[in-house]
């Protein structure tokens, strides 16, 4: 059956504006043939960098691992690849449903084992060669055969049997077993005629020759390590040319410095703001703060007694934590609303289920009666009834005589986690549990997790539009085969949960049934209280309205700009006309710099003269 047809128009999601259509057609008419024959090297004829015009400057803190899509794993580089290479499908920016990209439409067999993608006609690489089904088949096949090429995306081709190009515009993928991620294959398609000639994909970084041949809305044209990455618009992109001519990613390792750079107009866009930074920027002239519903959850897990898949126990978690009542009491002692207000300054939602509320289709909340909402009195009562006796020093003892003294591992590089941890220490003390906060490096924390040497431990995940992966983390399969090799992030294993996981998988085409099943799974996680979500932090971003007139968020309501699936934001961004920050002309600025250097040199010279004079005076 055909699942989806491509929408007809070439620009379904672009906010329409007369000026832009004009610009687009002019480009199509004349400049394009010229631009293609020699993709422009980074042109900076006007020496300003971000002061408006058609350059959009984005502040970044993360480094580049590789510009080879086979190797790149970091958020920054994968994001850049989504701007410069095509993928089979994408996500609709408005609805977040899977949407056509390089594949115009697709088919799946009834058993879900064969997928056929129809490749869009007339799409070209930036060197003029056509993008064909062969390129797609070659990209996937290379990742299946060469483990070095699967460094970054091996998870996507896991369970692929064979990928073949039936003709120039049809790709068939055969699977060993049905997979839920076939419309979320975030694998950049590469030009075979260039990449087939490379010997060792483990060592090729794709950063030797610019511009880099791709077929996205932008072309990678320049890279200065730790300074900037430059992308130029691909005027010839099948969906239409992007609004800005140039995207520059500039390095700012310090967030506060980044905020100041946005303030004075050196940057057009920044993301990952703290609530304090967002508050400070709110109301600033020419700056818009985008307070987007986040796709992350922040959580802590409780060590229920770690086991391998064969049932071998290991680690040194507190023995009493195997008791569900104790775990539930811990959850009831925590005031999530207070965390949202005090730690996140209101820029978050209190967590209900496992999947963040942003994903309306899958998020879940307990009914009032069965809720483990904040209620320390109820928690104390539960513990009293279960035989945890309060000691004289205000710390309870388990029926087996173990003092309820727990360690709590928290990432020390995340200020919000540290604050949440401090609140939790206090709240748990009120129900007779002594918590020793261990605020440690992520490395130490991850060692504690894999060795199961923890009691409570913090975690957090960014959730994909399809929640399959984060759900798979808590199946029994995710338990370690041998101690220290876990795939998940909690030692959770529940047969009913596993059955439901299999079922949601097969219900892939019945959205309502799948939604219900995923809700059931979250109910189990909630009741077992091993994996406990606390908040869904918002994504806080800001941009200069005097540089960016308009930009697409995903989803349309309360959506985000930076963490999108697909290239929508930067493709849709429209330059503002005539605006610019309060910057002094580059010449004057350079003059001031020169004056200061001269002054310093002068001081040095003077000192030298005085010493020389002394020497001259010597008797």
């Amino acid at each position, binding site marked *: 059956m055909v699942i989806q047809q491509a929408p007809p128009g070439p620009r379904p999601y672009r906010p329409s504006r007369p000026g832009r259509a004009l610009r687009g057609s002019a480009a199509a008419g004349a400049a394009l043939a010229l631009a293609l024959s020699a993709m422009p090297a980074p042109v900076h004829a006007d020496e300003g960098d971000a002061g408006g015009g058609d350059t959009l400057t984005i502040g970044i803190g993360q480094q580049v691992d590789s510009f080879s899509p086979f190797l790149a794993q970091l958020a920054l580089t994968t994001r850049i690849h989504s701007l410069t290479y095509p993928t089979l499908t994408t996500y609709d920016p408005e609805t977040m449903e899977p949407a056509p990209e390089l594949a115009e439409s697709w088919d799946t067999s009834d058993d879900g084992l064969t997928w056929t993608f129809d490749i869009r006609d007339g799409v070209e690489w930036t060197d003029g060669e056509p993008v064909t089904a062969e390129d797609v088949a070659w990209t996937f096949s290379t990742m299946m055969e060469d483990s070095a090429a699967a460094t970054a995306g091996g998870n996507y081709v896991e369970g692929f049997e064979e990928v073949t190009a039936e003709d120039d515009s049809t790709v068939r993928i055969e699977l060993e077993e049905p997979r839920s991620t076939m419309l979320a294959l975030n694998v950049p398609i590469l030009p075979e005629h260039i990449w087939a000639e490379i010997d060792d994909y*483990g060592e090729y970084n794709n950063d030797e020759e610019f511009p880099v041949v791709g077929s996205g809305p932008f072309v990678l044209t320049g890279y200065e390590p730790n300074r900037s990455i430059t992308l130029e618009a691909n005027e010839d992109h099948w969906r239409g040319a992007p609004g800005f001519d140039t995207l520059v990613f500039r390095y700012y390792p*310090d967030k506060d410095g980044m905020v100041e750079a946005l303030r*004075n107009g050196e940057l057009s866009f920044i993301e990952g703001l703290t609530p304090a930074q967002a508050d400070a920027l709110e109301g600033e002239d020419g700056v818009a703060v985008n307070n987007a519903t986040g796709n992350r959850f922040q959580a802590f897990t409780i060590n229920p007694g770690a086991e391998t898949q064969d049932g071998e126990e290991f680690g040194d978690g507190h023995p009493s934590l195997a008791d569900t009542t104790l775990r539930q009491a811990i959850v009831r002692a925590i005031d999530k609303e207070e965390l949202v207000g005090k730690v996140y300054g209101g820029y978050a939602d209190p967590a209900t289920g496992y999947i963040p509320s942003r994903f309306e289709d899958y998020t879940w909340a307990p009914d009032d009666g069965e809720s483990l909402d904040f209620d320390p009195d109820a928690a104390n009562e539960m513990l009293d009834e279960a035989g945890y006796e309060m000691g004289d020093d205000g710390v309870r003892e388990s029926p087996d005589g173990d003092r309820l003294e727990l360690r709590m591992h928290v990432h020390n590089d995340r200020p919000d986690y540290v604050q949440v941890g401090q609140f939790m220490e206090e709240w748990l003390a009120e129900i007779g549990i002594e918590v020793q906060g261990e605020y440690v490096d992520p490395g130490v924390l991850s060692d504690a997790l894999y060795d199961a040497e923890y009691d409570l431990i913090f975690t957090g995940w960014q959730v994909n539009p399809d929640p399959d992966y984060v759900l798979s983390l808590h199946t029994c399969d995710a338990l370690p085969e041998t101690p220290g090799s876990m*795939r998940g992030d909690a030692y959770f294993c529940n047969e009913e949960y596993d059955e439901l996981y299999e079922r949601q998988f097969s219900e892939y085409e019945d959205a309502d049934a799948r939604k219900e099943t995923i809700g059931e799974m979250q109910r189990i996680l909630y009741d077992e209280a091993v994996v406990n979500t606390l908040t869904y932090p918002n994504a806080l971003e800001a941009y200069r309205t005097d540089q960016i007139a308009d930009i697409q968020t995903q989803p349309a309501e309360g959506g985000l700009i930076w963490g999108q699936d697909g290239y929508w934001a930067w493709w849709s961004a429209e330059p503002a006309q005539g605006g610019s920050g309060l910057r002094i002309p580059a010449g004057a600025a350079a003059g001031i710099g020169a004056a200061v250097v001269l002054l310093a040199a002068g001081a040095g010279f003077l000192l030298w003269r005085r010493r020389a004079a002394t020497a001259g005076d010597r008797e």
Partner: protein
Amino acid sequence: MTAPAHSEAPAGHGAGSGEQREGIVRGLRYIGAKLLTAAVSLFAVMVTSFFLFRILPGDPVRSMTQGREVTVEQEQELRRQFGLDQPLWQQFLDYCAGLFRFDLGVSYQYRIPVAELIGERIGPTVLLAGTGTLIAALLGLVLGTRAGWRRGSATDRVNTGVALLLWSVPSFWLGLLLIVVLASGAGWVPGLFPTGGMMTPGTTGLLDVALDVAHHLVLPVATMVAVVYAQYLMIMRSSLLDEMGADYLTTARAKGLRDALVLRRHAVPNALLPTVTLIFLNLGQVVGGVILVETVFAWPGLGSLFYSGLTVPDLPLVQALFVLFASAVILMNLLADLVYPLLDPRVRT
């Protein structure tokens, strides 16, 4: 470090040439001993560096793939590419062999040779930290001399007070303050300086680049100088105070020399010695950069590179940087040891 390497040889009855030869031999032995010490320290640093960072908690592959969906095969592939699938002794041998070939390995995070990364960053670091150290030293010497010579005067009190106040200010805070005041602009006040980076992307032409870099250099250097010049000032001031009680100054005054001449010709040259040692020691740390200043001003230097490597840990990168930082300090100490006898005859005997 500056003590004579051996006890004084009996001068005895030797004639002029014999004494001279003896002097050369003694000098060579002094130099030899210093070189040997430096070589031993360097070797110790190389070995320590390998094991030190392997004791650090955290698994590079896990921390690099944290929060992402990866298969077991992908993790194994990464371990293979990084050489972490080899036994420890094999890794150690490879590391040692690499060092002797000046092959520092390939960074895990950046996937380019470490030597290349260091090459890119060492220039900016030396530019920033070197300029900062020199200006701070000059400023400290001048102000310290003034303050010491007129001890207790208003100049002294103001200078020492201001210097100590700035010395106790955290550099990242001062840097941010300067950015807010001088770079962001507030209301009708324009931002005078860029908030960070070393160069405006796309600047071309030698003069333009030099001016642009100088423009970017002002705030970070100012921050660094403001925070560190106090140590030069204080050392210069106190060693000048030591000299001021000395008999030769009284003699110089008795000769009727002007005050300024007494200061310049007699007091300052003697008081300069401890400060010179300090400058050398600090120059050794110049390559280590000034991590906080580099971070606040987005300066592409070695300090921030080291920091980014530590969080992974990016073993080849942090190992190489550790060896580099340590050898710079060792080298500068060695230089100080070798130069000192030339400056101070007392060390020669």
